[in-house]
């Protein structure tokens, strides 16, 4: 086996020498023709050309060979007496010796340059592989992303089939995912490796340095080892070495060692061990949250729907027609159920916001529609307030998620009603200026202190003066703020001070261009 590799390398060396000889012959022919036609006499320096070419293309040995051939050729063909290797003129002897030294030094320099170039190129490829590897790791969201990044990186660098088994990954499942082709013996070795590490790594140590095992299976040889001997969470890797012979196997294995050391360093630098744990936790939290929201939605709201529906049926029942006090009770059930429903909705909205689940569905909308819809939803809360509405007829269209903006406005109006007295005035006005649409809700209620202003959009924040007297979850304005922000707008509060009322203003990006374009898009 060793012989074949050596033979191959010798064959290649011989080919290079042959090519070098060809170059020297070609140069000789050209020089000879030049001497015959033009009478040039000093030509041995031209033999530096084959030396340079051989050095850059094939390395130092062919370069030296080119130098020797060059000396011989010029001694034979061009130095008197011609057609013998004897050189008599001391001047020419000196020339040839000078040429030989020059050829040796230039050849060596060029060969070194070539080596460095190749090294740099290899390093560049390695670095760019590593770079893309770390980029993939940086955007990896969960454990399996990280694992497949490691897998792909190794496969790309080694040019071999590579399968990575994470600590949580079923070996057989991973093998299936990789299109099978994995013998049972290898799976066994992987399982051993994984469990060996679990029990303290003693078994892995028995298999060899760094916990390696080589499993042969008829045609292919597989190398099984831990990605990192010290970090179990990076997993176990199986590399198909193919039919490689022991020496080339050795070379491949040291390459694998180098790549894995690089990969491990990258992984550790990026804190991947931590990230893997984190990602797993994030996925679990996400699942839990989804399940919770789903079950809260269903488990709490289904009975609410029954209670509220039944209350409305009871209220309209003929039996209660003349029972004023009973009807008031039913009304109470109805109102409280509604409040409970609003609170649950707020909690759901809040969890949607804090988990980044608010994805606005943007659409061209008439802000008037949003305002009317919000006013309809708040009609009952506003029933005993003096509501002044100022909505111009020529408001520009806004590109927003109408439902989110409406829900934000409902929270704001609701808040204005909650912190003001019955019979007081609530003014709702809309205006467009400088490409922005603003909607303001002004009340004559409790107003805001400086502290209120600073904290009012915080979650679960309730003004201290009212926490005891007015019910609420402290979520309303936080939700409103989040919904408005998600639509590219902003929410601001102004107040002259405690007891002097407050004004909340929603600003949204608006455009006149769409309207203008449509206004010209005349009706037929």
């Amino acid at each position, binding site marked *: 086996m060793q012989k074949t590799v050596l033979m191959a390398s010798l064959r290649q060396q011989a080919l290079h020498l042959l090519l070098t000889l060809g170059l020297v012959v070609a140069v000789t022919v050209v020089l000879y023709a030049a001497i015959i036609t033009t009478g040039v006499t000093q030509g041995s320096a031209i033999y530096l050309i084959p030396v340079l070419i051989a050095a850059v293309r094939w390395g130092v040995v062919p370069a030296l060979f080119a130098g020797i051939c060059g000396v011989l050729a010029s001694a034979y063909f061009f130095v008197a007496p011609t057609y013998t290797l004897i050189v008599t003129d001391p001047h020419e002897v000196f020339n040839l010796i000078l040429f030989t030294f020059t050829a040796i030094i230039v050849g060596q320099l060029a060969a070194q340059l070539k080596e460095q170039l190749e090294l740099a190129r290899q390093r560049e490829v390695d670095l760019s592989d590593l770079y893309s590897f770390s980029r993939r790791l940086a955007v990896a969201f969960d454990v399996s992303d990280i694992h497949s990044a490691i897998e792909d990186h190794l496969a790309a660098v080694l040019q071999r089939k590579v399968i990575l088994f994470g600590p949580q990954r079923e070996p057989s499942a991973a093998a299936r995912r990789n299109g099978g082709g994995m013998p049972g013996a290898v799976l066994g070795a992987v399982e051993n490796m994984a469990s060996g590490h679990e029990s303290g790594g003693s078994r892995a140590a028995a298999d060899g340095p760094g916990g390696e095992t080589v499993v042969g299976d008829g045609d292919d040889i597989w190398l099984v080892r831990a990605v990192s001997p010290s970090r179990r969470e990076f997993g176990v890797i199986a590399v198909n070495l193919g039919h490689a012979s022991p020496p080339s196997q050795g070379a491949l294995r040291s390459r694998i060692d180098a790549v894995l050391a690089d990969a491990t360093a990258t992984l550790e630098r990026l804190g991947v061990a931590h990230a893997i744990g984190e990602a797993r936790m994030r996925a679990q939290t996400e699942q839990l949250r989804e399940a919770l929201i789903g079950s809260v939605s269903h488990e709490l709201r289904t009975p609410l729907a*029954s209670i509220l529906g039944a209350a409305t049926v009871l209220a309209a029942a003929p039996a209660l027609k003349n029972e004023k006090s009973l009807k008031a009770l039913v009304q109470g059930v109805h109102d409280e159920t509604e409040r409970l429903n609003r609170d649950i909705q707020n909690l759901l909205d809040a969890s949607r916001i804090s988990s980044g689940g608010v994805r606005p569905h943007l659409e061209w909308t008439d802000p008037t529609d949003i305002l009317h819809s919000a006013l309809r939803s708040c009609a009952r809360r506003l029933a005993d307030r003096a509501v002044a509405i100022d909505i111009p007829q020529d408001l520009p269209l806004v590109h927003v998620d109408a439902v989110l903006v409406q829900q934000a406005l409902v929270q704001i109006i609701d808040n204005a009603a909650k912190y003001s007295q019955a019979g007081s005035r609530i003014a709702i006005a809309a205006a467009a200026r400088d490409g922005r649409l603003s909607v303001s809700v002004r009340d004559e209620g409790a107003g805001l202190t400086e502290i209120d202003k600073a904290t009012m959009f915080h979650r679960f924040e309730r003004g201290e003066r009212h926490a005891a007297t007015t019910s609420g979850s402290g979520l309303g304005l936080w939700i409103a703020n989040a919904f408005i922000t998600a639509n590219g707008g902003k929410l601001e509060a102004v107040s002259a001070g405690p007891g002097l009322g407050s004004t909340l203003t929603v600003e949204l990006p608006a455009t006149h261009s769409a309207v203008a374009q449509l206004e010209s898009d005349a009706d037929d």
Partner: protein
Amino acid sequence: MTEASPIVLIVDDEVQIRRFLRTGFELNGFVVHEAATGGEAIRTATLRPIDIAIVDLGLPDMDGSEVVERIRSWSNVPIIVLSVRANEANKVQLLEAGADDYVVKPFGMAELLARVRVALRRQSRAATGEPTVVVGPLTIDLAARAVLLNGQRLALTPKEYRLLQVLAQHAGNVVTHQHLLKEVWGSIHVHDTHYLRIFVRKLRQKIEPNPEMPRILMTELGVGYRLAQMPAEGEPAWATAEAGGSEAQAKPDA
């Protein structure tokens, strides 16, 4: 609804919801059939005559939208869907699948009854070929292509009339943006919602007695538009006004 009692099919897997719906409908002179699963619903709809179906979206055996599609494939019985909040895309999809309207849970009996009556009225109008739709002060004569506000004939452009006509054909029921855009501007404009916004605004200026506070052409945010049905007589004021809770759609302004 004066002659024979209308027959309603209630499809919901929650027994308490079925119970209050049954009582509510029976008190209002309906005959009630119940189904707890989609399969049962489709069987009942096939075997027994029904005038209207109320379908909950979350059924144990199949999605509510599948029930809607299956019933719609052979019957044009009105279908009202019980939906949850914050899922406008889903509402639109159900309406496109053939549902006539939706009510958001939790809802009040009065709100659901109002929707049911609108759907039944529309059905009987379609059956008798009744050509006029009256919404408060507005009268739309579909046969004569005439629109009158307080007895005065309005001058509408062809597109404005077409928009109003499509809404009037579904009077009281919500019509999706997509449907309106397709009917008025053609299928290539189904996503040009801004066309619709501008024409609705223009139309409101002509047909609404007070365009600042629309009472006739109502907005269903994120879903579509609806030609209002006026509040029915003889129902408790709060039940009519507030039946649907914070999401109530049809109620007089404060």
